[in-house]
């Protein structure tokens, strides 16, 4: 007795297989890997429709199964990438917190250095030698600033006095 086979679901199977193979190639290119998530889903859907149509009509399902499997594989690779990116963004918060701590430490160190820091610059050209000594202590700097401001104020007042005297 000859079995009456039909061709139902064949087109869907071919489409699923092509989409599945494209998805696998795309999934393995790191730059485009996430796109395989969508193409993989399309391949799975086409494959499922193809299998369903073919099995209802008792037609061969090989191509549709091939499409479904390749699509699923591409989808898995793509999901693995998504998991990695999710992990990365989680770690990024931790990295961000750590960076903040590091910046705070550096700022603290600089502040402490300025509280107690003295500096000395030496410029030597043959026998000639120039030494500049200074202090970067906050207190000293404040004193100097006040001193300078006082001198300036005095100069201002004397200058103002002179001008009024001339008038």
């Amino acid at each position, binding site marked *: 007795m000859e079995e009456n*086979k*039909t*061709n*139902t679901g*064949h087109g869907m199977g*071919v489409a699923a*297989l*092509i989409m599945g*193979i*494209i998805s696998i*190639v795309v999934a*393995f*290119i*790191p*730059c*485009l*890997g*996430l*796109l395989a998530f969508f193409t993989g889903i399309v391949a799975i859907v086409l494959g499922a429709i193809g299998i369903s149509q073919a099995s209802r009509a008792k*037609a*061969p399902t090989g*191509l549709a199964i091939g499409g479904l499997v390749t699509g699923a594989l591409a989808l898995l*690779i793509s999901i*693995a*990438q998504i998991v*990695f*990116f999710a992990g*990365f*963004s989680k770690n990024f918060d931790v990295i961000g917190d750590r960076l903040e701590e590091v910046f705070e430490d550096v700022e603290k160190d600089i502040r402490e250095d300025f509280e107690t820091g003295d500096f000395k610059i030496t410029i030597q050209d043959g026998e000639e030698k120039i030494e500049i000594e200074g202090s970067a202590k906050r207190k000293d700097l404040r004193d100097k600033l006040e001193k300078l401001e006082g001198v300036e104020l005095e100069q201002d007042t004397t200058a103002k006095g002179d001008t009024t005297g001339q008038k």
Partner: protein
Amino acid sequence: MNWSRTQQQKEILQGKNNNTPGPSNEKNTYLAINAIFAGIIILVFIYSGFFSPEKNNYPLECIHEKITGQPCPSCGLSRSFSFIMRGDISTAASYNEYGLRVFLFFLFHLVMRLSNIVYILRKPVHLKELTIIDSSIAIITFILAFRQFFVYYLQLLF
């Protein structure tokens, strides 16, 4: 026996029996799959030739780099392909060290798909054996061309 198969093939070709799976229909399917893949590879080559690496006007950007801020092993692949299309292999290698290998994979498959089409149309073939050989070659060449990307994925995950 041979007569009935030829008759069936004739019927399929004449469109009288196009809903029946048989050797001719399988052959047509195989031809269609080969033609579609050849077309896709030609489109990839047209894309690489059309967009310029100097202008850097590629519409597809690296998603990986956008998210992580770090380049991935496939970064520069489009520019590498474009330089290969323009015959500048050394510059292509400087943009992506795996570019030439992946390009050769596509070129090999384009030649294979086109020769398959010609071969099937000209000579009677055992489609099952041909499909098995074709799939095996495709998988082996794919692993050879993309193996650095597999390694990269494995490093990401473990």
